[in-house]
Structure formats: structure tokens, C-alpha cells
């Protein structure tokens, strides 16, 4: 019966009965059937020997090579399609992330450059302010030195017009400090220029600093390069001059005070 079963010759009822028995796990019958299958397989040699056409081999190899190539190409040597898709997605994400990181890096670099430029600008402004403050402090120090110098003398410069208040100057070896209030604003961009009037007969007035009153009418002038000898100066005078000052007076004296 085992041989007939392996041959496929058993009718349905016999076949079902034997298979039901084999399903019980009978090792003896299972081995007998396995050997019977081998025996039946030997019947293939009863077929007359005939070779298939060469074209069949050619067609098969063409198909097989095409499928092998396609499989290697599309599935990356055995990698399934879905995994290729995942790899492609990861690659895309990686490229995007790299591009994103590059963009972020570029933005950060540009931001740093802007920040550095801003800091540099702020530092320049601060340095300028500091320099101005230092200059202002230096002027104040020089002004203070002049004011507290015992050799300095106070000079009152009287206005040529009665309605204009006088100016006050402290003159000494360290310089001249000139102050005033409610000073009329010169016309246009003209300035008030200080002149040192020599004692020597015929000597020309020596030009000094020029200022414009502030919006409150105040003026403050500190002259640190005073003449070598104040004893040779007989008076201080103020005239109105062009904006850049003038080497010699071009208008009438507005204020004047004699050295005492």
C-alpha cells in the first residue's frame, strides 16, 4: 500500500485512511512511505531519453539572468523592496538634515558676523564716547588747574552794548578760562573769537579760540596754550568772526577786559 500511495494510485478512501494513520505519528509507516517515495521516483528512468532544445536553455538563462540582475539592482543584493524604500527615505532625511544643518550653520555664522560688527560698532562708539569723556575730563582738569592756580587772575570782559552781560576770564600761566551767560547768538554760523591784545605798540592782536554759545546762551572756553608771558598781554577781547575763525579781527569788539 505504501508504494501505491507514493505512486498516487490509491483511490480516495484508501488514501484518506492511510493519511489518517500517518497523522497519528506512526514512525514505521512514515519511514516506509518515505522509502516508497524514493522507489517511485526511480520510475523516471522508464521515460525514453530525450534532450530539450537548446533554445529552451537560452530562454531560461535569459530570464534567470534578467531576474538576477533586476534583483541585485532593485533590492541591493537581496535587500527587500521595502527596506530599500526605508534606506532611501533615511538617506533623504540625512541629506535634508545635513542641508538643514549647513543652513543653520550659515545663519549662525552670518548672525555671529552681524553681532561682531555690531559689537565692534558699539565698541567704537563707546571708545569715542570714552575719548570724548577723557578729553572733557582733561579739559576740566586743565580748567580746574587754571581756576585754582594762585597765579591766575580774574578779568571781566565788559560788553560794548549795555543790554549784554559781561564775560569772566581767569588768566594764568596754565591758560585761560572764559565763561559767560545769556550771550547773544552770533548771526548765521559765525562764532565768537578770543583775541589777546599785546602791550607792545603797533603789535597785532593774537588770535585764540572761537566758540558759539549753547542753546541756553552759555559759553565756556579753556585755552591751554596761553602765551609764554601774560605780562606782555594788556587786554582780552571778543569779536564776531566767520565760522572757521579768523587770523585777524574782521569786526568790531563785542567784549573787552584789561589785564590787571
Amino acid at each position, binding site marked *: 500500500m505504501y508504494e*501505491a500511495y507514493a505512486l498516487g494510485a490509491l483511490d480516495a478512501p484508501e488514501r484518506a485512511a492511510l493519511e489518517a494513520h500517518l497523522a497519528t505519528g506512526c514512525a514505521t509507516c512514515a519511514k516506509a512511505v518515505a*522509502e516508497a*517515495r524514493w522507489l517511485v521516483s526511480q*520510475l523516471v528512468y522508464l521515460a*525514453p531519453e530525450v534532450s530539450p532544445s537548446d533554445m529552451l536553455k537560452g530562454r531560461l538563462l535569459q530570464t534567470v539572468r534578467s*531576474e538576477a540582475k533586476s534583483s541585485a539592482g532593485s533590492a541591493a543584493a537581496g535587500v527587500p523592496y521595502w527596506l530599500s524604500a526605508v534606506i532611501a527615505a533615511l538617506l533623504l532625511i540625512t541629506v535634508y538634515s545635513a542641508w538643514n544643518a549647513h543652513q543653520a550653520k550659515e545663519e549662525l555664522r552670518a548672525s555671529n558676523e552681524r553681532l561682531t560688527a555690531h559689537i565692534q560698532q558699539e565698541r567704537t562708539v563707546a571708545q569715542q564716547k570714552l575719548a570724548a569723556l577723557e578729553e572733557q575730563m582733561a579739559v576740566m582738569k586743565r580748567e580746574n588747574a587754571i581756576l585754582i592756580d594762585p597765579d591766575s587772575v580774574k578779568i571781566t570782559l565788559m560788553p560794548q552794548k549795555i543790554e549784554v552781560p559781561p564775560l569772566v576770564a581767569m588768566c594764568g600761566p596754565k591758560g585761560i578760562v572764559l565763561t559767560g551767560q545769556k550771550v547773544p547768538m552770533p548771526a548765521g554760523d559765525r562764532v565768537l573769537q578770543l583775541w589777546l591784545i599785546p602791550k607792545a605798540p603797533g603789535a597785532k592782536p593774537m588770535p585764540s579760540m572761537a566758540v558759539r554759545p549753547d542753546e541756553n546762551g552759555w559759553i565756556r572756553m579753556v585755552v591751554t596754550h596761553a602765551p609764554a608771558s601774560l605780562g606782555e598781554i594788556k587786554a582780552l577781547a571778543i569779536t564776531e568772526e566767520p565760522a572757521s575763525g579768523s587770523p585777524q579781527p574782521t569786526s568790531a569788539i563785542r567784549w573787552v577786559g584789561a589785564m590787571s
Partner: protein
Amino acid sequence: MFLAVIRPLDESGASPDAALVRLLLQNDVSAFETLYDKYSRIVYSLVLKIVQQSGPAEEVVQDVFLQLWRNSAQYDAARGPFVPWLMTLARNRALDTLRLKSERQRRLENQTDELYSVVVAPQYERELDEKRRAERVRSLVGELNPQQKRAIELAYFQGLSHTEISEELKEPLGTVKSWIRNGLIRLREGLRATT
């Protein structure tokens, strides 16, 4: 004569055929070509004997080898030698072309099961080369009563059952069963005696 020969097992215990089939899993075309060269002749002979026409026979052989290529994992060397497995595959495919659609459907499950069935070659057969085995099988079956041989061939090459063979040969069912059973036992004993 068939060119296929039995080769000794390799160091891992697997036959050279099993090793070639494993290579198919890696899309090894040369392994496929080797298997084709070894077994296309015997497969074609079997299929042509069943379907009787060269055109359909080549189509079946093509299907068989493409199934081997695409589904080589179906072969499990632990369940038996490669050649009986390949012959079962080829025989089932060829018989399928002969059957009506309804009958094909009825037998489909059994055919699929056969591909996963255990096949054991008797110890006495393992050292017999393919050429000698073929000669011996033909000789032993040729010694049978012509009706007995015909009954076996109807079962193997046309897939007929005992009852169908009985009707075909117009012989009693019991006689047909005895012919087939005794004929296969004589074949088995004859092969055993050969070695």
C-alpha cells in the same frame, strides 16, 4: 543515457546538489546553469513522456526550472535528496497539464503536500551511480508482465488511480492493485540486489 550522476556528500554532510540549490538563494546564475545542465534532460524526458508533445513539454520544463530558481527555498535537503524532489515537481506539473480544471483543483493540495514530503533513499542505493540505476530500473521493469508494467506506467506517467487503471485496462481492481504492488516490490528488491 542520462548524464546525471550521484556524487558523495561534502564535508558539511550536504550533497553537491543541495549546495547548488543553496546558491540559488543568492541568485547564483552559474549554479542554476549547472543544475539545468545536469537535470534538464531527465526532467524533459519525464515531462515529454507524460504530455506527449514537445512544445507543451518544454513549457512545463521551463516552469519547473523557473520554480526551482524563484522558489528554491521550497527544497529542504533535510527532507531528502534533490533529484526525487525535482522529479516530483516535474511530474506534478506535467500531470497538471493533462487534467481537467476541476480535477486539477481537487489534486492541487496533494501535489503541494508532496513537495514537502520526506523522501528517504535506502542505504543500499546511495552508492549506485545514476547511469547504472537507470539501466537497472529499465531492466527490472522490463522483466515485468507487460500488463503489470503498463499499469505502473499508467499510474506514474498519467497519474491514474487503481480504479482508473482498472477501467483503462479492463482488468479487475484487485488484479491491478496486485500488479502495481508486486511490480514495485520486485523493483525494490532488484535494486537492492544490484548493489
